[in-house]
């Protein structure tokens, strides 16, 4: 077990290293220059003043030293949690900008991922044994999972937000309120949260439901199920075994799907003007704020890696066979 986890940890550390390095490279080798952006904004035309400012900003963004030093320096400040200064929201530090946005993204993502996974699996397993449900709910699930997050988001915003007027279609809380732990603010924030959450939840829900339904049917036709049935075991018991076996690929699937869901949530945030990382990334791109972009990606990469690690560990806990294999191997 320890060895298994150790091997995984090394793998993850390596992935992290490569991700950070690529992340560092992208802004530096992309066209566009943050110093010029700042100068353009300052509207200074006197050549001497310009040169002075150019130096000033190059120093400020740490662009005045050789590349290898910049790279080492990047790691150094990364460890201290310093991701540089945002160009777009100058002079706010990138870390501060990100920390403002991350809660919104998490509050959308975590419930959407977990609830859709749990609910989708239950529903899929349930649908698999009911012909009527299988015939009606399954096509809907296919439709849902094939829907791009953003498109469903637009539909929901239009249908439930604008036409029906049940939920606010944009923002995280109403403009008349300030964040506070009051019933009024929380209910308002919840109302704003429903639509973006639903658009993420529904698409992922459809995917899990289909996967589970297929897996259950496959498991029910496996030899052990036939054997159990031949022994006269109750249907309930057979199904429980089938469900537990079918869960395993779904756990792996969760690890694989994380990236897609995160990417989807970024688009969803843009649709609903939800002030999370997604909206931030879009603005960072539009404003060529590479430091912010770099920081946002780093957050996402780290988040996905951690989630994967959790799933990996969970897999060991859930599947006795991996445990036994590892003990046998060790």
């Amino acid at each position, binding site marked *: 077990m320890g060895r298994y986890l150790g091997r995984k940890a090394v793998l993850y550390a390596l992935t992290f290293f490569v991700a950070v390095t690529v992340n560092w490279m992208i802004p530096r080798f992309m*066209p*566009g220059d943050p110093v*010029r*952006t700042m100068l*353009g*904004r*300052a*509207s*200074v*035309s*006197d*050549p001497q*003043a*310009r040169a*002075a*400012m150019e130096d*000033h900003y190059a120093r*400020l963004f740490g662009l005045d030293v050789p590349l290898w030093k910049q790279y080492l320096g990047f790691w150094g400040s990364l460890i201290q949690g310093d991701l540089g200064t*945002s160009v777009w*929201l*100058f*002079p*706010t530090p990138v870390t501060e*900008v990100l920390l*403002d*946005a991350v809660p919104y993204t998490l509050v959308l993502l975590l419930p959407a991922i977990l609830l859709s996974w749990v*609910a989708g699996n*239950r*529903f899929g*397993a*349930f649908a698999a044994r009911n012909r009527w449900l299988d015939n009606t709910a399954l096509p809907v699930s296919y439709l849902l999972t094939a829907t791009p997050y953003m498109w469903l988001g637009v539909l929901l915003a239009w249908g439930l937000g*604008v036409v029906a007027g*049940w*939920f*606010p*279609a*944009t*923002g*995280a809380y*109403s*403009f*008349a*309120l*300030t*964040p506070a732990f*009051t019933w*009024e603010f929380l*209910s*308002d924030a*919840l*109302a704003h*949260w*429903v639509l973006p959450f*639903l658009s993420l939840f529904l698409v992922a829900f459809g995917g899990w439901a289909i996967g589970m339904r297929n897996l259950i049917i496959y498991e029910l036709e496996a030899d052990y199920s036939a054997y159990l049935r031949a022994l006269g075991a109750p249907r309930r018991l057979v199904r429980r075994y089938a*469900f537990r076996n079918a869960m395993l690929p779904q756990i792996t699937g969760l690890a694989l799907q994380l990236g897609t869901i995160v990417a989807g949530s970024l688009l969803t945030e843009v649709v609903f*003007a939800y*002030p999370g990382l997604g*909206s931030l990334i879009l*603005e960072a791109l539009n404003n*060529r704020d590479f430091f912010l972009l770099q920081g946002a990606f780093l957050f996402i990469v780290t988040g996905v890696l951690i989630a994967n690690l959790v799933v990996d560990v969970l897999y060991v806990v859930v599947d006795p066979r991996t445990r036994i294999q590892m003990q046998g191997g060790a």
Partner: protein
Amino acid sequence: MASRARALPAALAAVVLAAAACTSESDGGGGYPRAQTLYTSGTQWGPPSTWNPLAKSQYATGTVGYVYEPLFLYDPMEDEYRPWLAEEGEWTGEDTYSLTIRDGIEWSDGEAFTAEDVAYTVELGRIDAVPYSNLWDWLEGVEVVNERELEFTFSEPRRQEWANWLYNEAIVPEHVWSGRSEDEVVNDPNEDPVGTGPYAYETHGQDRMVWAKRDDWWATEQLDLDVRPEYIVDIVNSTNDAALTMLTQGEIDLSNNFLPGIDRTLEASPEITSYYDEPPYMLSANTTWLVPNTEREPMDDPEFRRALAHAVDPQAIADGPYGGIVAPADPTGLLPAWEQYVDQDLVEEEGFSHDPEEARSILEEAGYTENADGMFATPDGDPVALELIVPSGWTDWMEAADIVAESAAEAGIDITVEFPDDAALQDARATGDFDLLFNNERQISNTPWTYYDYMFRLPVQEQQTTVNFGRYENEEAWELTEELARVDVEDTERIAELTSQLQEIHFAETPVIPLWYNGLWSQVNESVWTNWPSDASDTPPWFPTTWRNYNQMGAVLTLTEIEPVSG
């Protein structure tokens, strides 16, 4: 298991319904009371990140105007300077100016506002990175005479430019700022700003900036002015659609966004109004020019530029992509606010208008020859093939560029249109790596000097970042412009004389081709606040806008005039 599976959707539906119920409940109380809150949008393109009045294109909406105030306000409608923090100012000699500040003004932290604060603000210009650092090219010194009086000595008395400084730049408190390093003066976000103005920082979020009214604003006592909204919530721009929806639903009172198709909304909904109730609906804020790169062939030939000016069709642009919410520009390009300086006789004689035939004959006379396909080639026989660049995503400009290319083709000038992203375009513009582009980076001001300064400023540098993107060099025109800067603001006759000469050069040389006047985009929903500025005589004579640098032109006074609908 089965029962649980069914319970989940039901539970979810319950949550959803509960949440829906909450929204309808919460409309009533709490938060900022709707009837006392003004919702605005259209200025802020990202989360508020700085309250530093020196970050001129970035400070949170209202930082200058609501918190920091200038010495004078300039009223462009009446062409008048209104003493603000200053009580009076006058030229006491050829190069000396004396200024008296108002008595009894306090900063929001309770300290007195004194002449030292003004001197300190002026001295900040010695820092290169401060936007008005060029002030010290022609200002020699500032001396504090006593607590309320200052004397300025100039090495070169540029009176128009000085008048421009007096109303444009906000005064900052020395006692708060004096501990800051040069770097901090320019780059500090200046959270919790201490100012003299009617509002104070309340809070901000990623998508908003909230100001709260301050009870002890000096102008309430001294000028009997009272800002009506208790709170101002400025909403960060997201999309045009979102802004339009919020405006029509009454969630935004004053929208200064450019909303394509707003003319239809204005006609259809009585509660949504704009400055004029017929086309072009909006006041004019700046001129969009077609800027040819005069360092490249054949744009280095004034005859070619003149032909190009005859080839383009501004009316088609105003009618097409803008649906009539902008007006085609006068050939001089001078904004309607400067109408008194337009030399009408000259315009009649030498101005240009859309006339493809005239464009062709100018080109033929200048030795350009027509190819078999009807397109012109230079006198040397090279085909003319130009590229017009417009930032990608600026849909109105992109359509306008297509129209320019079409109408130029009609006159035999081959223009193709490219849409690079904005940053790439700025690069190309600064280094002169382009054929043709659109630009509108000069707003309305107290003097046409700012307009000609844009057109003729010399010397042309390696990087042209703010003015004269076409890299046009004409010593005579620049001398006239500098002379214009020195004319006293009262001497309108001399100003008219000089601008007339500049117009003549403009027509003969056409370094830029005026196309249309961009609107001071402003649409209001009158369901909560009324008495907004309009061209009707019984409404306030101020600009209905929250755009940066307009508060110094009296836009802030709009807040003292609007009236709540309920009580």
